[in-house]
Every structure is written in structure tokens, then in C-alpha cells.
């Protein structure tokens, strides 16, 4: 009796320690992450003004904005998304509708998963080597867009395949039974039925590439004036942050504001994507 109540007590204590540990680390983790966000908000909000969107990154000691980075980011993310949407949706469709169960399909799916979390700096290195030796012999906005596309493709491929596989087989069969060519079935029935899922994937991919710095370091390189010319070196918001963080106090201020802009964009896009996918589950 005494021995068993001792064992019960020991187990209770063990459990209490474990539960306490879980509570404590959760609190610590949330506080640490909240502290980062709070610093970001506090330091970043101080620098928000109109100049931010109209002026380029200033030289040391002058006032300026982040317009060059914002324009560059939009252009390069646009190019990246355009390429990635075409290739990603088609690749996801192939995995879901045509060859997903073949040996080749299994290999492609596996490598797509690996590419999904491959170090982004290596993607940048790869694109820089290819583009600069073979096509445009200097850093360019186009190269940056291609590097971003390579990061977005696996995300879109993955989500497209997943949502297409959610559609019932009878949907395909009913289309084919009407004599519709299979590619028309895919385009007008399957893609339409899973459009919000594909859009979710696209938004998540966009959220991922809009904050990427490493793949742009050698491909887009960055510059300090407002430019729409994607054939030459181009700035991007994360590149500007990278460059400004180690500068003077004014520049650090600008870097915080840039970081706030990027984080806000990423958060907004991610939240929209989540809302979309919830609606889909309900509907």
C-alpha cells in the first residue's frame, strides 16, 4: 500500500514536472517570438512615410526611401510567379492525372519534395552560373526572377497535386462519358473545381519567395536607383535590408521599415491563403 502510493506520487510529480516544462517552454517561445515582432513593429513603424514609396535607397547621410527595392521585388516576384504558375500547375496536373503512380512519377514527386526545402542560396548559385554564362552576361532582374521561380515551383506543384487528388474520380468519368477530350475535362472541370486550392498554393508560394534574399544575391545583385529595367542588375526589398542593416543609424531605420513591409506582406498573403483554404473545407 505504502509502496504503491509512493509510486503514484512519483508518477504525479513526474507528470507535473513534464506539464510544467511544456507550459514554460511555450511561454518562453511565444515571448521570444512576440519580442521579435514587437521590435520589428516598433522600429519599423517609426520610418513609414511617403518617401518610402517614391525615393530610392539613399547614400550614407541622406534621406530616402525603398522605392527601388519595392519595384524590384514586385517585378521579380511577378516574373517568378508567372513562370512558376505555368510549370507548377502543369507539373502538379501531370502527377495527379497522368503519371503520378509510375516509377518516374514517384521519383519526380520525391525530388519535388526535396527541392521544396533545398537551400535557397544554392538555387541562386545555380541560376547565376547558368544565366550569366549562357544568356545574359551580367546580373539581371530576369535571373533573379528565374531563381525565385525555382523556389515557387515545388510549392505550387505540391499543392496542385494535393487538391486535384481531392476531386472525386466520378467527376472525371462524367466528363469523359460526355465525349469530352481529357485535357478539356482537366481544364474546364477539374481545374475549375479545385481553383481555390490552387490559388491557396500560389499565395503560399508568393509568400515564400517575397522574403527570399539568398537567391537574389548573385542573380539580381541589387542597385541603388529606381529602375524598371529587368535586363540589368536590380534591387529587391530583402537585398536593400541586407545592405542597410550594417550601415549608419538612418540606414538601419530604413532597414527596419523594409523588414516590416516584407513581413507584413508575407503575413497578409499567408492569412488570405489560410482563409481561402478554410472556406474550401467548409464549402
Amino acid at each position: 500500500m505504502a509502496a504503491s502510493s509512493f509510486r503514484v506520487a512519483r508518477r504525479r510529480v513526474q507528470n507535473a514536472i513534464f506539464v510544467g516544462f511544456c507550459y514554460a517552454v511555450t511561454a518562453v517561445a511565444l515571448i521570444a517570438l512576440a519580442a521579435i515582432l514587437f521590435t520589428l513593429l516598433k522600429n519599423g513603424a517609426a520610418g513609414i512615410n511617403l518617401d518610402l514609396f517614391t525615393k530610392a535607397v539613399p547614400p550614407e547621410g541622406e534621406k530616402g526611401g525603398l522605392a527601388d527595392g519595392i519595384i524590384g521585388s514586385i517585378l521579380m516576384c511577378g516574373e517568378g510567379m508567372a513562370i512558376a504558375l505555368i510549370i507548377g500547375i502543369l507539373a502538379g496536373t501531370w502527377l495527379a492525372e497522368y503519371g503520378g503512380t509510375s516509377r518516374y512519377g514517384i521519383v519526380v514527386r520525391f525530388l519535388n519534395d526535396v527541392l521544396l526545402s533545398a537551400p535557397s542560396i544554392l538555387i541562386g548559385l545555380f541560376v547565376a552560373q547558368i544565366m550569366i554564362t549562357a544568356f545574359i552576361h551580367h546580373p539581371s532582374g530576369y535571373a533573379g526572377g528565374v531563381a525565385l521561380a525555382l523556389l515557387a515551383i515545388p510549392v505550387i506543384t505540391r499543392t496542385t497535386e494535393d487538391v486535384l487528388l481531392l476531386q472525386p474520380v466520378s467527376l472525371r468519368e462524367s466528363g469523359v462519358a460526355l465525349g469530352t477530350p481529357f485535357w478539356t475535362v482537366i481544364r474546364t472541370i477539374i481545374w475549375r473545381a479545385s481553383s481555390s486550392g490552387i490559388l491557396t498554393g500560389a499565395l503560399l508560394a508568393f509568400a515564400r519567395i517575397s522574403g527570399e534574399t539568398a537567391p537574389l544575391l548573385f542573380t539580381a545583385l541589387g542597385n541603388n536607383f529606381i529602375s524598371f529595367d529587368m535586363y540589368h542588375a536590380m534591387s529587391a526589398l530583402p537585398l536593400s535590408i541586407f545592405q542597410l542593416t550594417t550601415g549608419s543609424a538612418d540606414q538601419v531605420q530604413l532597414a527596419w521599415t523594409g523588414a516590416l513591409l516584407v513581413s507584413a506582406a508575407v503575413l497578409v498573403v499567408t492569412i488570405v491563403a489560410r482563409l481561402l483554404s478554410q472556406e474550401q473545407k467548409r464549402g
Partner: protein
Amino acid sequence: MTDASISATLPDAARRRSSPRGAGFDIWFEYACFAAATTVLVALGGVLVVLVFYGWPAFATFGLDFFTSSTWDPVKNVYGGAGPIVGTLITAILALMFSLPVAGGVAFFLVEFCPPFLRRPIGTAVELLAGIPSIVYGMWGYLVFAPFFAAKIEVPIQAVAANAPGSLLDTLTAGVPDGYGILAASIILAIMILPFTAATLRELLQTVPAQVRESAYGLGATTSEVIFTVTLPYVRRGAIGAVMLGLGRALGETMAVTFIIGNAHNFPKSLFDSGSTIASTIASEFSEAHDPIYSASLIALGLVLFLITFGVLAIARLMLRSQAKL
């Protein structure tokens, strides 16, 4: 009646039924989809081929020394990658050691004993934080964490260690207490991969059927016993996969590390000593590497990183996949 005689009675138009509009494109659409899927394969294969091709001169020139020597001298054009390679492994493993207990704690908390009204907000917050760009963590580390770490952690610890010269603590904490170095970088990395690992683990723990957990509770097990004897064994493969995925992220992370590791290419002598990782070395030097052997050495380092992460990620994905099939 035979088939032939049926078709003979049908009008001409029906017998020569034209194929539906657009049917000719059917095969081309399939080819296009196949080509897109192949792009994924070509991209990953292309990375490997490019890294091997352009990095080969470094292996050819320095041979095994490239892996064993830590002399990284752009002036004399002698490159040994041991410093960055070791730095990458140390920081990633330390980051994993720091973040794993915390991420596990957060995941258990969310799944097992979080009050229901907090479960969704905290769960969502963790998932959203996983998407914050790594450069934000890097700049927070450089501007906020490093000064704090130097003043509040490094200096006091060194003061304690100074009482016992030559002890293990003294050796581990030697160096300039400036807030930049291996340990600081590992902590930033740990904070960065924390939301990601916690979110993945939480998703995994939620796949454990309620009956399995409830039957353990029904036998009188405490919460910790349920977790360690029922829940965790149930998801062990997936859990290993999730951890490896986090490790893969830590290994290849560039921006969170470059700011704070100090970028020195020697072997790190202590936890406070500055070092470098493969990704940070490439990020800070590749633009200026005009000498062919210099850029080849950096690309060769990239190849080493590629092979390490590919191995880690491949294991992670196989583990996660076999869990999903259960």
C-alpha cells in the same frame, strides 16, 4: 445481327463520327504536363551538375586538403573548406538541440493540454511565424540580440570562467565577447526553425487517433506517460522526419547566420569564437570572387552543402512519407 451490319444501317455522318473538338490537343497537353514535371527533375539535377562542373577545379587543385585544411586565403589563392564545413555542422546541430525540446514542448502543449479557446490562436500564430522571412531573424539577431548576448550572457559567463583557467568552461567560452559567434548564430537559427518544427510536430501529433490516446488514459496513465509511451511511438517516423526537415533548414540557412556568425574561416576554437558556415561564406564572398579558383572553391563548398542537405532531406521525406502511409 453482326456489328458490321449494324454500322451498315447507320447514316453516313454517324459512321464517320468526327472526334470531339480539341481532341487533337489531348496528347500535346499531356506532353506539356510531362515536360513541366520533368523541369523539376532537371532543376535539381541541374543544380548538382552545375555545382560539380564549376566546383571541380577546386577539388582537382586542392584534393583532400579541401576537406581537411582550414586555410582559406584569397590573397595566396589557397582554399581549404574545413572551417565552413565544420561550422555548418556545429551550428545546425546546436540549433537543433536548442529548438527541439522547445518545439516539442510547444507541440505537446497545443495538442494535449492547451485550453481550447487558446488552441487555435496559438496554433495559428506558430504557423504564421514559420513564414516570417529569415532575413528578419538575421537582422534582429544582428541589431538586438548580439548586443544583448554580449553584455548579459558572454561577459558574465567569462567572468565566472576566469576563476578557473584551463577548465572546460573556460575553453568553451574563450574569445572576444562581442556577441557574434558560433553560439549566438546557433541560438538565432534555433529561434528561426522553432515555429516551423513546432508546427510540423503539432500537425503530426494531431494524426494520432483519439481512441489510442484515450485508451491509454483509461488505463490510468498520466499525460506524460501517454505522450512518451503512446503518442510519440505512434508518430516516431514522422517525428524523425520533421526533425530532419528542421535540420535541413538550419544547414542551408543563409541570411539568419551571415549577420551574426562573424565570418572567420578558421576552425571555431570555442562557442563564443567567430566562425562561418558554407552558406554564409558563399553569401558574403561569391560576388567578389573573380579569380577562377576562388569562385570554384566557393562552388565546391556549395556542392558539399548540397550533398549534406540532400541526404538529410531525403531521409526526412522518406520518414514522413512512410508515416503518412500508416
